[in-house]
């Protein structure tokens, strides 16, 4: 096989939502979303009921959009042609239980239209990729949750799709396994595949995703890299934690600053600050420390994590 099989040879976005709306009866699932997916890892975030599942089902062609188009590699997502380019690792923990992992992946390869020889080869590759080469002969019924997740992933990788959609891939996987799988997603992204990961665990997203799609109440609230999204909330007050042996002296120095909205003494030698215009604050703070040589053992911005950004996005969305 050659590199041209991989999607970086294809022009344009790998998948595209063109003002897609989907409703079930009177209930709206997603409302007028337009997003493109490109090579790299995209994280899909949002609380339960935000429309993530609908988004994924639209992308994998299980649902037909009520309005708009979903394109995968320039084919409508519901067509068989589009499904050739999509690998989907579903959330539900269901398999053809009586098969072994290897048989299952091979079956899926055959259902993708591969010949027996080809499917055998690709199965071995996919199993190697998820680190299950030596453990794939046990029947799925007797496999642990982590092994099942990996087999599910192998199944999604076996036809070398341009777009890989993984729904909650890290549920039930132990910390070591998590790292391995995250590494795997990165390799896929590096090959030019578009990887869409939906997950609830924000700190992992923080580490993993190149781009994040925030969803809430059926709409896409924000798209972009984490720093981009964070920059959108630059005006928001920041939470800062400072540990300093001269707790009270430092506090008295900081009170007059107009960037500092609130100071809270917490613990033996800790300060919790709420500041605006952080750049100003940090510059001034640096100068202060150099001038006074207070012994600051910790300076930490506590809400730059995805979790905090998530809170910001959600509260911002609630304002309109």
């Amino acid at each position, binding site marked *: 096989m050659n590199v041209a099989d991989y999607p970086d040879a294809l022009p344009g976005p790998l998948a595209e939502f063109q003002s897609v709306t989907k409703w079930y009866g009177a209930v709206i699932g997603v409302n007028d979303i337009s997003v493109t997916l490109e090579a790299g890892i995209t994280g899909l975030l949002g609380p339960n009921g935000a429309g993530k599942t609908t988004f994924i089902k639209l992308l994998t062609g299980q649902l037909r959009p009520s309005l708009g188009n979903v394109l995968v590699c320039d084919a409508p997502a519901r067509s068989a042609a589009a499904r050739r380019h999509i690998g989907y690792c579903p959330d539900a923990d269901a398999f053809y239980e009586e098969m072994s992992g290897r048989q299952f992946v091979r079956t899926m390869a055959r259902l993708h239209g591969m010949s027996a020889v080809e499917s055998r080869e690709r199965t071995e590759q996919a199993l190697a990729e998820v680190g299950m080469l030596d453990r794939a002969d046990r029947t799925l019924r007797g496999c642990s949750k982590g092994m099942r997740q990996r087999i599910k992933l192998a199944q999604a990788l076996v036809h070398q799709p341009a777009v890989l959609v993984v729904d909650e891939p890290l549920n039930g996987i132990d910390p070591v*396994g998590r790292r*391995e799988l995250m590494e795997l997603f990165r390799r896929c992204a590096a090959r030019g595949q578009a990887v869409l990961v939906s997950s609830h665990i924000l700190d992992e997203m923080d580490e993993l995703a190149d781009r994040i799609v925030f969803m809430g109440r059926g709409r896409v609230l924000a798209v972009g890299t984490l720093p981009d999204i964070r920059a959108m909330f630059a005006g928001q007050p920041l939470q800062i934690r400072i540990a300093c042996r001269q707790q009270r002296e430092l506090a008295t120095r900081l009170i007059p600053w107009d960037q500092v909205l609130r100071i809270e003494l917490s613990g033996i030698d800790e300060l919790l600050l709420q500041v605006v215009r952080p750049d100003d604050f940090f510059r001034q703070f*640096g100068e202060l420390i150099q001038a006074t*040589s207070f012994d600051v053992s910790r300076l*930490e911005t506590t809400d730059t994590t995805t*979790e905090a950004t998530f809170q910001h996005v959600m509260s911002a969305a609630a304002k309109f």
Partner: protein
Amino acid sequence: MSSAPTSPAALVELTQLSHFYGKFQALKNVSLTVAPGAIGLIGQNGAGKSTLLKILLGLLNPSSGRGTVLGFDLVRQRHELRGRIGFMPEAESLIPGMRGVDLVALAGELSGMPRRQALRRAHEVLSYLELDEVRYRQCDGYSVGMKQRLKLAAALVHDPQLLLLDEPTAGLDPQGRDAMLRLLHAIASRHGKSLILSTHLLGDIDRVCEQVIIVDRGSILGCGRIGELRQHSLGRYRLRWRGDDSGFAQALTESGLTIQTTPRAGEVVVEVPADWKTVRFFEIAARHSAILSDVVPEEEDLPRLYHRLIGTDSRLASTPATGYPKS
């Protein structure tokens, strides 16, 4: 015979406990003493966590060895014991077709509460877990988060002294997870319940537990207060800054510090000598017009502690390098 010792010093006490599934030994001569409190249970898939939980619950007879939980013998007093334990299983263990409040009340009755008391407690616990609005709906229509809280409600309804939780936050969204952890923390700290929390998310344990049991391949690798197991002060700082990108990092190297770069731009981890003062970071930053926003001493957090004890590198070395052949 059913009277328990008035105040058991140890919550769990196991001596030389083993368990076999056929020939496979799931637990190998485990001896363990745990004081009451919030306890985290971590380990790889298949390390024996669920087996341990099931034995503590009295669902499974250990093949050899003995133990007590809450002062009750694991084998001989298992019914009395189980009435004092709340178990929240990982698998979906609901009875389809039942309303939420009926299910919780049933759980209470099965643990020995009289019917009216159980119903009263069920309402109380459900509203405590913020399920008031859905309590009259059928439980198979609940969302993942609601199901998790319903399972917790069923485990809490008879006011047990010890809660066993198997992956309570699996499948929850961030807000749900946050709420669940706050709840567990409150139950443990404010209401004096003990909990044993088995999870893969080390962050959960960090937030709720003060003790931890680390299981690997059927043996206990570490057991005790997280603070005691942890190695303090690794002599490393994580720095984040705004502005100038590379100059600052270079200046750090020139001041004789070893640098590990992280995947993020504008962030490094530096190793410092013993007599290092943090002021010097600010000085170097000022010289290179970089604005320091984070100076965080690196402690051994739970993931690192875990990886140290399990014996894998914290930065992952074990990924198989085999991918698609690129030819």
